[in-house]
C-alpha cells in the first residue's frame, strides 16, 4: 500500500507538448508510471514518446480512463487546467506550475473539492510511491520503497531528507511535496491522516518551513490523532520578517509564521524536531 498513487494510477500529463511536460512525461513513463495520455489543445491525435496526445482532458479521460493528472502548463493557464481536470472526472490533480496567482488557486481548489477530487500543489515537485508510481519531477534514484511517509513544503530539501533516509536504510511509502505557495491543495493534516491509516506506513517525516501556521496545526493534529512516530525539520530560522524566502508562502508576516514558533509547537506536542536535515533518520529510528 501507499497513499494517493500506486500501480493503479493512470496518469495524464497536461501540457505534454511543452518542454517540461514532455521531458517529465518520459521520465515518469520510464519509472513505470502508467502515463496513459497527455493533453495539448490543437495537438490532439499526435504522440509524445509513444504517449497519445488529446485536445481536451475530457477526450483523454474518455479514451484512457485516467484517474490522475499532472499539470505543466504556464502559470496564467494553470487555473483553467486544474478545473478542466476535475471537471473531466480526474480524482487527483497535481499542479507542478510555479507562480500561479493565489486567487486562481483558491478558485481551482474550491472547484476541485466540489467535484469530489483532490489537488496537490501548485508550485510543488509532485509525489512518488517508490517502485510503483512517480507523478511529478522528483529524482527517482534517491527513493527506495519502505515505511516512512514524507510530507514537505519544499523540493530539494525533501530530496536532501529522503537521500539521508535512504542512505540510512529507511525506505519511503509515499513522499509528497505539497507546494510552496500560501494556498495549496492537500496539506499536513489530510496527509497525516492518510499516512496514519495506511498500513504500509510505519513512520512519518514532516518538513516544514516559515510562513502561516500549518505546522502549528499539524502539531496539534499529531498530538491528538497520530500514533505513528513523526520527526520534523523546519527551515527558515534565520529568515528575516517580511521577506519572501523563495517560496511565495515562506514569509513571516506581522511577526507570525516564524520557525521558532513552529519548532516550539512540535516540541510541545512531543514531536522531535531535527536541527539538521540529516538528523531525521536518527530521530525516526530512536522513536520506533
Amino acid at each position, binding site marked *: 500500500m501507499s497513499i494517493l498513487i500506486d500501480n493503479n494510477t493512470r496518469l495524464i500529463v497536461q501540457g505534454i507538448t511543452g518542454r517540461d511536460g514532455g521531458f517529465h512525461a518520459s521520465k515518469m513513463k520510464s519509472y513505470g508510471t502508467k502515463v496513459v495520455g497527455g493533453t495539448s489543445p490543437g495537438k490532439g491525435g499526435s504522440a509524445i514518446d509513444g504517449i497519445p496526445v488529446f485536445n481536451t482532458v475530457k477526450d483523454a479521460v474518455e479514451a484512457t480512463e485516467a484517474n490522475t493528472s499532472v499539470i505543466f502548463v504556464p502559470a496564467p493557464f494553470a487555473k483553467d487546467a486544474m478545473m478542466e481536470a476535475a471537471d473531466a472526472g480526474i480524482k487527483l490533480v497535481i499542479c507542478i506550475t510555479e507562480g500561479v496567482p*493565489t486567487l486562481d488557486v483558491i478558485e481551482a481548489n*474550491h472547484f476541485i473539492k466540489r467535484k469530489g477530487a483532490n489537488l496537490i500543489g501548485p508550485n510543488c515537485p509532485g509525489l512518488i510511491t517508490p517502485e510503483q508510481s512517480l507523478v511529478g519531477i522528483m529524482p527517482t534514484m534517491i527513493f527506495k520503497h519502505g515505511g516512512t511517509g514524507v510530507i514537505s513544503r519544499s523540493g530539494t530539501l525533501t530530496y536532501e531528507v529522503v537521500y539521508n533516509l535512504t542512505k540510512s536504510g529507511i525506505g519511503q511509502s509515499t513522499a509528497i511535496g505539497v507546494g510552496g505557495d500560501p494556498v495549496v491543495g492537500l496539506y499536513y493534516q489530510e496527509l497525516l491522516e492518510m499516512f496514519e491509516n495506511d498500513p504500509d506506513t510505519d513512520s512519518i517525516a514532516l518538513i516544514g518551513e516559515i510562513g502561516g501556521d500549518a505546522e502549528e496545526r499539524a502539531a496539534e493534529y499529531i498530538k491528538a490523532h497520530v500514533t505513528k512516530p513523526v520527526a520534523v525539520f523546519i*527551515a527558515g530560522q*534565520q*529568515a*528575516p520578517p517580511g521577506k519572501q524566502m*523563495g517560496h511565495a508562502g515562506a514569509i513571516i508576516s506581522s511577526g*507570525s509564521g516564524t*520557525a521558532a514558533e513552529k519548532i516550539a509547537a512540535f516540541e510541545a506536542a512531543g514531536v522531535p524536531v531535527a536541527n539538521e536535515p*540529516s538528523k531525521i533518520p536518527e530521530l525516526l529510528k530512536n522513536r520506533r
Partner: protein
Amino acid sequence: MKVHEYQAKEMFATYGLPVDKSEVCRSVDDAVKAYNRLDTSKVIVKAQVHTGGRGKAGGVKLATDEVELRQHAAAILGMDIKGFTVDRVLVGEAVNIDKEYYASYVIDRKSKSTLLMISKEGGMDIEEVARVSPEKIHKFVIDPSVGVPDYLAREAAFKLFDDIKLVRQVAAIFQKLYTLFVNSDASLAEINPLVLTKEGNIVAIDAKMTFDDNALYRHTKIAALNEPTEEEKKELYAKSKGFSYVNLGGEIGCMVNGAGLAMATMDMIKLYGGDPANFLDIGGSSNPTKVIEAMKLLLNDENVKVVLINIFGGITRCDDVAHGLLKAFEQIKTDIPIVIRLTGTNEKEGRALLEGTHFHVAETMGQATQKAVSLVNNNHD
C-alpha cells in the same frame, strides 16, 4: 507588492468606496494649495511610506490652520520612518469621528479562501486585538464561486451595527471592497479605521492594499506603482535572472538550488556559529550561466568573505553539475574561498571532478558549513 495609502484610496474611489477628501503632496507649497482647495479648517497630514507605525514616529499630524499645516508638512516631508524617507504626504479633510471600526479581506491559508475580518475595535493594531481579545474579531470565509452575496454582507454588517441604515451602508462597502480585492488580485485590502462620522456617514479614513506578486502580470497599472527599496531592487534584479535572493548581512554567501534547501543552509551556518550573508535560491538546475550570474550577485556584497555552494543533484546529475561549476568558474575571478557541497545522483563522480581544484569540496551539509565557518574565522585572524 505594496502601494501607498493615497494610491489605495484612489482604487477605493474607483470602486465607489467612501473615502475622505484628500490630496497627495510632494512639497510644503503643494500641501498649502491642497489645504486651500479642501476648503475646511481641520486637516490631517499623513506621511506616505511603505511601513507601519508612522503615527508613533510622528508622521501623522492634525492641522487647524495654514501655519500649523506648513509646520507639519515641513516636519514630515523628509522625515525618516524605519529607514524610509518621506517624500509625499497626504493632506486630507479631518472627519468628525464618532466610532472606529476595522475591516479587511485577507488570504487565509487554513480555509484556502479569502477571509473577511471585521471588528468593532478599529483604529488599533489588529494583531494586538487578535492576541488579546480574539472574540472581538469576526471572520467570514468567502466561497470564491459566490463571492459576497447581500445576505453575507448584511450578516457581517450586523456584527458592527444595529441600525439598518448603517448596516446597508457598511454591507455595500464590504461588497465593493471584495470586488476590488478580487479584481486586483490583492492579498490584503484593509480599512483601519473604518469610521462612523458624527454626521452618520461611514468613511474609510485609512486604506492599505498589498497585491499578489504572482498576479501582477495581469495588472500592469498596479505593477507600475511599485516603488522598490534599494534592497528590493536587488531582489527584483535577482528575480529577473531567475533567482530568489534576500540579503541577510552576514559573511558567508550561499548559493543553493531550491528554496527549502537554501533556508536550511542559512540555518546551518548559524547553527555552526557563522553568519549567512544571504538567502539565494538559484532554482532547479544549475547551468554555467546561472552560476556566473549568481556569483556576481554574491561578490557584489562586500560583506561576503566565503561562498558556500550547496547543490542537490536530482534530475540534473552531480557530475553534470560539477562540469557546469568548473565551466562557470573559468570565467569568474575571485580570491574568496569557495566551499562546494554536492549530493544526490552520481555524487561521487561529481565530487571526484572537483577534487584537486581550488574549491573546498565537502560531502555533507554539516561538513560544508563547518568548513565555511572556519574559513571565515581564518580570514578574520
